[in-house]
């Protein structure tokens, strides 16, 4: 099964990368661009047929390794029809 984990900076945490990209887009003439936040999108192949258990295991991966709870949030997306 393929699982997608989105890691994003918690609200209020400074995102210097997002700021720099937004400024650059503005400079390039994309005046309509406001705030930008950059996160990670991790696509994981997981061999676990049981969806409930799959979700639970991936959540564990997020807490142990994939995200840093001090500054990041994660969300898990298990596309249907796999």
């Amino acid at each position, binding site marked *: 099964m393929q699982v997608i984990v989105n890691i994003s900076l918690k609200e209020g945490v400074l995102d*210097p*990368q997002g700021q*720099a*990209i937004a400024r*650059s887009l503005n*400079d*390039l003439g994309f005046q309509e661009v406001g705030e930008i936040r*950059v996160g990670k999108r991790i696509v994981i192949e997981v061999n676990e047929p049981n969806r409930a258990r799959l979700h639970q295991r991936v959540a564990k991966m997020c807490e142990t390794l994939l995200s840093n709870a001090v500054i990041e949030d994660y969300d898990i997306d298990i596309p249907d029809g796999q």
Partner: protein
Amino acid sequence: MRIAILIFPGSNCDRDMMVAIEKLTGRRPSLVWHKESCLDPIDLAIIPGGFSFGDYLRCGALAARSPVIDAVLDHAARGGAVMGVCNGFQILLETRLLPGVLVKNAGLKYICRNITMDVCETVDSPFTRNLEVGARLTMPVAHNEGNYFAGEDELARLNDNGQIAFRYVDGPAHGLANPNGSSLDIAGIISANGRVMGMMPHPERAISPELGGSDGAKLLQGCLEALVS
């Protein structure tokens, strides 16, 4: 010899490059701020190392879209010579003046150490003309993203056309020769017409024996002499 060094807000090897060029030529190169949109007539444009715009998004990506780069593209289109070192190499790839990309080092870590590289046989180019093929040069690398990547076909083309200028060889006792996992051990490449060169190692940091050796001076001197003659 008219040389311009481009400066982005996060460039940090601009002074080092300026000092090296001044030491070798006796003349201070002109320094051009990234917001300038044209260049005075020059023989060589140098894009120095650093973190141009914080290296956010992709190294060199934001810099490659700044006004001064348009001027560099014009200069290159007229056959002008362009050299990019480290972040400058990354920027040149983002402008597509050179093919391929530089991705994260295979070890996923920043690496600062002395490397040894061989001068390769290339198309005629001021950047290699005065260097002996097979000469070994030692100088530092210092980067996070120096892992050269291109498709198989592109790599074959670079190799067959003589566009690989420098290759990592002969590692230190405690590490591999290739510090970053670069395809074909590529440390630097040149454009098909020989006028644009990008390299990860820092020649400007090796311009005197007490400071990291003088192979960088040898390399730069060779280029500068080829460009005037």
